[in-house]
């Protein structure tokens, strides 16, 4: 037997021993850890028990500005309540903090399986720059429909620090036993990283917003129709429209007054919205520009989260539009 073959065999043997040792010692803890990290994925796979299965379904895909976990009463639910008596609908709000057009694109396949009549996607000017975190991609990559894969190969996956082969691999591995194995290994890696970097402040320092300049700067991201986030937004809209579902992009309100005072707001914001409009409408969708809709007193922080007053304002504004979209989609 050649040396190379013997080396490979010994490597495999030792790896198997290490794997067995890991499973016996930290397996359950690693699985629990890894499964939590894939919470979004588990949520998507779970059969959704719709509260009102006979009502027209409106899906909301947004970020922390309308996610249930970051808002006591987000406006999608206020809209549902407002239309209850005259035009009952079911608002399904699957928004997640940090969700960006890549996440919306990957989740769109699952959303369309739920037969919505209309989809509303929140586009936040604050998260238009490419993101260097690539890990979150694999959690949702396998939800990209098979029919979308050829077009998906041309999408700008580098905007989320990943590649199409990685997306494809994640999709290929979406078989329960393999997924559980991946969750476990990932959980073990997370535990190792936590043990390695026992002092969190060094990592947290990288995430903490140090001053207003950094908070405002994120809003001022130049975009063109070729920017990765814009292209993914267009791809999300196109996917929905191809399946016969109306897709409306809402440009989320930003704290214009404070941005203007700090010197970050100007005509460029309107230009960027027009870029989004041309791209979204070109993909067959609609766009509603609310970026300057709210006043300072309707925000609760610099990250663009609304308070109760702001949410109510937006609900009043959007309720008739939601009704119109649902009526035209039925």
């Amino acid at each position, binding site marked *: 037997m*050649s*040396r*190379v073959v*013997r*080396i*490979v*065999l*010994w*490597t495999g*043997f*030792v*790896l198997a021993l*290490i794997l067995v040792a890991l499973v016996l010692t930290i397996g359950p803890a690693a699985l629990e850890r890894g499964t939590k990290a894939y919470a979004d994925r588990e949520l998507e796979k779970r059969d959704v028990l719709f509260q009102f299965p006979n009502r027209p379904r409106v899906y909301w895909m947004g970020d922390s500005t309308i996610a249930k976990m970051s808002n006591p009463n987000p406006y999608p639910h206020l809209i549902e309540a407002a239309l209850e008596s005259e035009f009952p609908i079911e608002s399904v709000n699957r928004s997640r903090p940090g969700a960006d057009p890549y996440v919306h694109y990957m989740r769109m396949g699952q959303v369309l399986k739920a037969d919505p009549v209309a989809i509303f996607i929140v586009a936040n000017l604050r998260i238009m720059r490419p993101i*260097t*975190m*690539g*890990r979150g991609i694999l959690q949702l990559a396998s939800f990209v429909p098979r029919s979308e894969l050829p077009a998906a*190969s*041309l999408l*700008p996956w*580098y905007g989320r*620090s990943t*590649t*199409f*082969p*990685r997306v*494809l*691999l994640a999709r290929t591995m979406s078989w329960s036993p393999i997924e559980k194995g991946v969750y476990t*290994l990932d959980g*073990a*890696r997370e535990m*190792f*990283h936590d043990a*390695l*970097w*026992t*002092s969190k*402040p*060094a*990592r947290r*320092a*990288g995430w903490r917003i*140090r001053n207003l300049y950094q908070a405002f700067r994120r809003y001022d991201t*130049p*975009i*063109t129709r*070729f*920017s990765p986030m814009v292209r993914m937004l267009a791809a999300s809209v196109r996917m929905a429209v191809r399946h016969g579902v109306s897709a409306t992009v809402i440009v989320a309100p930003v704290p214009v007054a404070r941005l203007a005072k700090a010197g970050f707001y100007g005509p*460029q914001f309107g230009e960027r919205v027009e870029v989004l409009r041309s791209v979204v409408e070109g993909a067959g969708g609609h766009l509603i520009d609310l970026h300057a809709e709210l006043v300072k007193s309707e925000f609760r922080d610099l990250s663009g989260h609304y308070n109760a007053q702001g949410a109510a304002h937006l609900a009043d504004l959007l309720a008739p539009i939601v009704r119109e979209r649902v009526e035209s989609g039925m």
Partner: protein
Amino acid sequence: MLFNSLEFAVFIVLLLGLYFSIPAPYDRVRKLLLLFASYLFYGSWNPYFTLLLLGSTLLDFNVGLRMAAARSLSRRRALLLISLAGNLGVLGFFKYGGFFADQAYAIAGFFSPGVSAPPSWDILLPVGISFYTFQTLSYSIDVYRGEQKVCPSFLDFALFVSFFPQLVAGPIVRSREFLPQLEERRVVLPNAVELALVRIAIGLFKKVVLADTLGAYVDVVFDYPKSFGTLNILLAVYGYAYQIYFDFSGYSDIAIGLAALFGFHIPENFDRPYLSANPREFWQRWHISLSSWLRDYLYISLGGNRLGGVRTYFNLAVTMLLGGLWHGASWNFVVWGAIHGLWLALHRLLTRGRAVSEDSRARRIVKQFLTFQMVCFAWVFFRAPDFGTAAEIFRRLFVWQINIHSSAEIALVCLLASVAFHLAEAPLPLRERVGRLPPVVQGVGYAAVVVLVFLFSSGSARFIYFQF
């Protein structure tokens, strides 16, 4: 695809299987497969940029053919200019367009305060463009100089340009080193496979375990230097020196090992650079493929040392300045290049006319230490995002600040391991020693590397030199 990613592992296993399932006499089919795989590899980042790669390949292939057929020197020169303009034009647009536009508007704004800056160009930099552009240029220049015979096969030439192991971050391979390997049938011996696997394992260990771990600490310190005291800053400065070395040399190790699996030899790119005792030696050991490219195609073209003392220093300075600019469109890189240029010129001036004598061990160690400090000083400009951060780094280095961050322990252990690893490579490279170990020991080593690479992976870290 990153070399340390699962999808690349799947890619390479499938490719090796397909490649060796093709009988050796069908070498053309094997080359076609490698070409297809290389374009697939490059297209995984952005499929549209494969058009740029193809364009550069078509340009220089045709320039080479026409140069060989040209009868007059003026025609050959014109063709060379076309190649230079085409390749440097594309490189200039994608890499430096925004930078030069910003400088032009800054200058215009100085003279006319009412001039406002245009919107940002927002041009995506194609991965590896600096590397493959220099590679194809070396072919055109060598053909022009008569040092390289023209390549008649488009398949061979396209594979030379796009060969995936060294496509995105080097080593920059010369046509005269690679094209002859495509003309002959390559045989892959078991011993070569063994050495290749050792090389790849060492490269992965350097990149994922050492470089990325150091990088996690270095990034935070360079992002927020005001939060850290002198010792933390010092740890980050030394840490970056080893981070960039292990990141880049690790990539080169993997590239060389991967090429060897297919029977190709790619030249070495590093030779224990932090054991250098002077700047000249450093540049003979660091990023060898780039420094030799700059020497052969820029420094010598400018006249080298043939035109007298002052002109020699000028040529040296220009070469290093442009070498700095090659790394990125930022004044930081220019300053880094200028520091090395000045240092090289000073070293040349001080050692000119002196007989070369062997240093004593103690003297050499002192010189190595001082050279390393100077290299680290220059790295601060290379790494810092702007001059303000670089200034803050230096201020905190030379003005004692007490704030020892507790997360420095891991970085310190990693730095000590890095220094030990680097020293262990002298006098014999580690790969040669590991390759002689019994299979069971190597098996344990490989298993350990696989486990460590998996545990230390963060999923988002990239190779530093991909941005160049």
